[in-house]
């Protein structure tokens, strides 16, 4: 049962090389919605209404530019910071907020921390926390798609720090050897929690790492939605033409903390932050849209207002959604419960009934 999202129109299956002018405003609307929701979530976390949150601010253009270049049938393997990708994909704010709360509407059934979601019907694979593991999955899924002769690509998202992971190495190597239709989309936001890029690797940039695996690596300005879109569309076309994988390094900046548990002032300067704030991808795109006559100031205010209203409504619905039932923790460990696990479920139910465990 596909979810009714109030978000802007997701992309069509056929994807052109360049983001057409008439999609630019769509891109902006997604970015506004992502930013709005992100800010709300940070507040919700501070208010204790959600337990934890990983913000994306600064990375909206990269995410939206990439996601708009994909077809709905392409498989996405996210990390944990891809809120805007999820929104472009058509995953509604309500569905996401259900996950952040972990209520009975959460299709992850309350099992995961906020930001660790996925929805099979959106070809958006459920994330985990260990960094990089999704990279080899994307390659394996691409091998499967090759075998099935499905004309799709798989796209995995990861950060600069994750280029040091085992799965980055294994995944890109397999992709090179098996020439898989995979796009490795690295959002280089210059930090892995506190570790700056220069201490993560001594390579001149991250895209060059593709050389080690025999396929192209591309650096792109991740603050510019159009450049990102073009790079991804090209990589996608190459992949579909059987020309193999591409590593794309989108250079962005994380404007906020790593997560709500992080204090970035410990490891970076106000000056650096200010420098990057000046490059805010939303401000930049708005400026372009205004210049090109695709947007007026008043319409912009309306966009923000609409986004806020949408998030407010979704939040109200999500907070009104009942909690998840306690004994659900015994589901989905296996396709069906083995006897010993069933015994534990029964034991747990008894403990709940006797008040020894609280629901």
């Amino acid at each position: 049962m596909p979810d009714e999202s109030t978000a802007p129109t997701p992309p069509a299956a056929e994807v052109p090389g360049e983001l057409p002018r008439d999609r630019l405003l769509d891109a902006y609307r997604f970015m506004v919605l992502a930013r709005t929701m992100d800010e709300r979530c940070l507040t919700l976390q501070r208010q204790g209404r959600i337990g934890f949150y990983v913000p994306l601010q600064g990375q909206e253009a990269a995410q939206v530019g990439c996601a708009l270049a994909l077809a709905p049938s392409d498989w996405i393997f996210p990390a944990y910071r891809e809120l805007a990708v999820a929104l472009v994909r058509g995953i509604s704010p309500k569905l996401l907020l259900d996950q952040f709360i972990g209520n009975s509407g959460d299709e992850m059934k309350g099992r995961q921390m906020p930001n660790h979601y996925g929805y099979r019907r959106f070809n958006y694979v459920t994330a985990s926390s260990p960094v990089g593991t999704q990279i080899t999955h994307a390659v394996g899924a691409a091998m499967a798609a090759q075998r099935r002769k499905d004309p799709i690509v798989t796209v995995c998202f990861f950060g600069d720090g994750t280029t040091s992971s085992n799965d980055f190495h294994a995944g890109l190597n397999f992709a090179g050897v098996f020439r898989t239709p995979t796009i490795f989309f690295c959002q280089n936001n210059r930090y892995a929690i506190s570790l700056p890029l220069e201490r993560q690797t001594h390579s001149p940039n991250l895209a060059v790492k593709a050389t080690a695996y025999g396929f192209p690596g591309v650096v792109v300005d991740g603050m510019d939605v159009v450049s990102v879109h073009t790079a991804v569309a090209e990589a996608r076309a190459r992949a579909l033409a059987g020309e193999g994988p591409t590593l794309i390094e989108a250079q962005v900046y994380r404007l906020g903390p790593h997560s709500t548990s992080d204090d970035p002032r410990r490891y970076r300067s106000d000056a650096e932050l200010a420098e990057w704030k000046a490059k805010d991808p939303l401000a930049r795109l708005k400026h372009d849209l205004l210049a090109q006559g695709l947007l007026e100031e008043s319409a912009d205010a309306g966009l923000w207002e609409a986004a806020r209203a949408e998030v407010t409504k979704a939040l109200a619905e999500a907070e009104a959604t009942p909690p998840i039932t306690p004994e659900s923790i015994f589901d989905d460990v296996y396709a069906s419960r083995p006897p010993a696990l069933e015994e534990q479920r029964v034991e747990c139910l008894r403990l709940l009934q006797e008040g020894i465990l609280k629901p």
Partner: protein
Amino acid sequence: MTDLTLVQAVNRALHEALSTDPDVLILGEDVGVNGGVFRATEGLQKEFGSERVIDTPLSETGIVGAAVGMALYGLKPVAEIQFLDFIYPAFDQIVSEVAKFRYRSGGQYPCHVVIRTPYGGGIKGGLYHSQSSEAYFAHTAGLKVIVPSNPADAKGLLLTAIHDEDPVLFLEPKRIYRSVTGEVPDGDHRVPFGQAATVREGSDVSVFAYGAMLPQAVQAAEALSSEGVQAEVIDLRSLVPLDEKAVLASVEKTGRAVIVHEAPRFCGYGAELAALLAEKALYSLKAPVARVTGFDTPFPYALEHVYLPNAERIAHAVRTTARAS
């Protein structure tokens, strides 16, 4: 029915699965052109092509990670890890991803990967070609762990594994890959998970074993028979899910238990069996539970015959357990 060795039975199971289900594929190091270092995949690439029997680069992380991606997409990958000792580079994928995908996605993404790998000692493999680390995996919720001890079970359990909805670690006792021949049903023979097999009935002591320890346990039981000790030998086959009923029923009958495995004793799989008895069969126990296992050291090379439980050591423990009171 055909007479086969255990490794041939594995090969036939793979052949059967590849023949009947286009979603099945095999991947691993040296599984294709070379037919596997133990020849378990012999002939399969030739017959089914290099897109279904895939030689991979030397990366267990990549093998299991790619298999996960394939499974998510809907295929039924059977990954080979050349030796269980070399599974650890894939441990993160196995523990964090394979075992938890279904759960963390709320049931949206089953992850039916089969990982086959030869395990155990007895081939003079030293520290790194002899390990039995089944306990790591048995402790990992979300995985099933299967160990056949004879050719027919090897085929039947492997076919069940390939068509199961859950991920399965399939441990092949390489020491008896070729030493035993047995009748194996042709075609799509399946042996269900979660059912132990009583290999020998007996009234005095229950002996629990699996994999390459089975022949040793049976040999011990037979030797003891002449001394008047009747050991019941149970082949667990399915470590997860465990056939608790069979374990408890046997001990309720005999009142005595000896647990056998190659792995080190401390926190080994045998500990769970003993704990189960201490929890659910305490009042039946007439003697301390004995464990005959590898010692709590890494696996040695020159002295593997001292390290590995043998029939004599098992017999000794059974005798002692039978007499204790």
